[in-house]
């Protein structure tokens, strides 16, 4: 629908009816200091009572503000061009590394797939992620080319989208809003124009709690959550509420959450998962891993069956560490025989 498409509704309905149909209208009015306007009238009639000086302070007059509301509604309508991406595949076509050597590869990733990225710090991992984010077309230093759904994205897809292609999760991220978990999730749901806010918030909260080591309540302030609880909430929220079809995870190994469950949750929501990691459990859990060296993709390794067998051993080791961590948390003494008996169990 274009801005023009909303003009019948905006001019024909009372503001009260309009707000019922589009709750965002009340935000629009508040943003223009019009929250005390007469809601029983249509917008243009109600504006007759408003001091024109006040509209002028927003650079508007009674005609342009009506048009402005139509544009506003249009930009938030679901079929607006700034809407969510639908992604069936992402293809990385190799460019060159820092020394100019060709990467010689073409890698297609589909939603639900998990790709790990390994390589020393400074090797060019974030460059790869940025190439994906800006849908590089041989115009970045790496000369890589990114195809979306097998095609070259058009310019407007590259530059005008309202939704970011990539959602990012890393260890350095924090919550800065001083809200309770429930308020926080409700706010995010509202900004995503979710229809069943309560349902989504509940699901998100339950998911986050199942990932976190220690439980928290919906009334806990997000700023008071422990590192692990924060990470769990961020992951559940990104998986269930974020519109971005690609999720980029940066080293969540020490986050104090159930990593495997977290990754399963994210990939289970039909998102493309890219994670840079040094954690063997996560690296081998992925379907493929990209090895970065000297600014370029050195190789792509498909996780072998043999490697997957090792995963069982690694999980066992990981569980030992986890139970040691729990013992410490409960104030137990770690005796010398304890670790041996865990390994032999």
């Amino acid at each position: 629908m274009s801005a023009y498409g909303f003009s019948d509704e905006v001019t024909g309905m009372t503001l009260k009816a309009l707000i019922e149909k589009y709750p965002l209208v009340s935000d629009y009015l508040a943003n223009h200091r019009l929250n005390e306007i007469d809601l029983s009238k249509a917008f243009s009639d109600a504006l007759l009572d408003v001091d024109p000086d006040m509209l002028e302070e927003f650079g508007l007059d009674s005609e342009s503000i009506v048009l402005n509301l139509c544009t506003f509604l249009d930009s938030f309508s679901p079929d607006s061009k700034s809407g969510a991406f639908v992604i069936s595949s992402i293809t990385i076509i190799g460019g060159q590394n820092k020394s100019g050597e060709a990467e010689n590869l073409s890698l297609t990733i589909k939603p639900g797939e998990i790709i790990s990225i390994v390589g020393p710090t400074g090797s060019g991992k974030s460059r790869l992620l940025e190439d994906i984010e800006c849908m590089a077309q041989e115009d970045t230093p790496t000369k890589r080319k990114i195809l979306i759904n097998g095609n070259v994205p058009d310019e407007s897809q590259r530059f005008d989208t309202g939704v970011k292609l990539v959602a990012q999760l890393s260890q350095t991220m924090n919550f800065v809003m001083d809200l309770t978990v429930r308020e926080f999730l409700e706010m995010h749901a509202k900004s995503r124009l979710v229809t069943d806010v309560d349902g989504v918030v509940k699901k998100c909260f339950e998911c986050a709690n199942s990932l976190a080591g220690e439980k928290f309540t919906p009334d806990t302030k997000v700023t008071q959550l422990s590192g692990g609880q924060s990470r769990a909430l961020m992951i559940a929220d990104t998986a269930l509420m974020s519109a971005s079809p690609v999720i980029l995870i940066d080293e969540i190994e020490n986050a104090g959450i159930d990593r495997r469950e977290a990754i399963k949750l994210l990939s289970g929501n039909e998102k493309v998962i890219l994670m840079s990691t040094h954690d063997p459990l996560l690296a081998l859990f992925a379907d493929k891993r990209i090895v970065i060296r000297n600014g370029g993709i050195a190789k792509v390794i498909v996780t072998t069956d043999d490697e997957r067998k090792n995963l069982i051993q690694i999980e066992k080791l990981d569980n030992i560490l986890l139970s040691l961590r729990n013992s410490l948390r409960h104030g137990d003494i770690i005796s010398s025989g304890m670790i041996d008996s865990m390994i032999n169990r």
Partner: protein
Amino acid sequence: MKLVTVAGPPSSGKTSVIIKTISALGLPEGKVGVVKFDSLTSFDHIRYGENKIPVQTGFAGKICPDHFFVSNIEDAVSWGKRKGLSLMITESAGLCNRCSPYIKGILSVCVIDNLSGVNTPRKIGPMLKYADIVVVTKGDIVSQAEREVFAFNIKEVNSQAKIIFINGITGQGTFILAKHFGEATDINTLKDRTLRFTMPAAICSYCTGETRIGDYYQMGMLKRMEFDE
């Protein structure tokens, strides 16, 4: 010469965004210059200097920063042309949140940061509302959800703007902004162009240096508040 105006609250990351975007543009050294409009002090010219970017700094001092901008912008353009710049960027802080140094037809960028509070987009006013591009910085330290809520609040105030997320430290995201800079309008002069938004109304006795309080000393343009009984 292309002209781009960049505005934004203090410490939102304007200088970092500009420096990283200039390097993403890949133009020869000395072809991109900056004019920094500030009120009392500025240290940004040091950073531009370190990056070998030609820079001029002007201080509004006791003059309204917006008025200072508009009365100097033409000379700034002439300076840029004398220097042979192919792109000139002006940088200014949006000191009273009523300011917006944007000119019709000239690419206008507002820089705000994720740490400034989720309702900040609603408070910034014309500087955000009239921008073509809103750059959001410091996204690397807040949760994905907060970034999305923040972007939503920006769209509520300015539904037309393109929102670009930039990491001012690593430069991630500047690629797209550089593309937009490259497509900015070529100009010779700003004469007869108009601002996108009116200046704050001025000229009262306090504008001309009055400091005493009382009805007797108030002259010119005044606005009275209404208080409840």
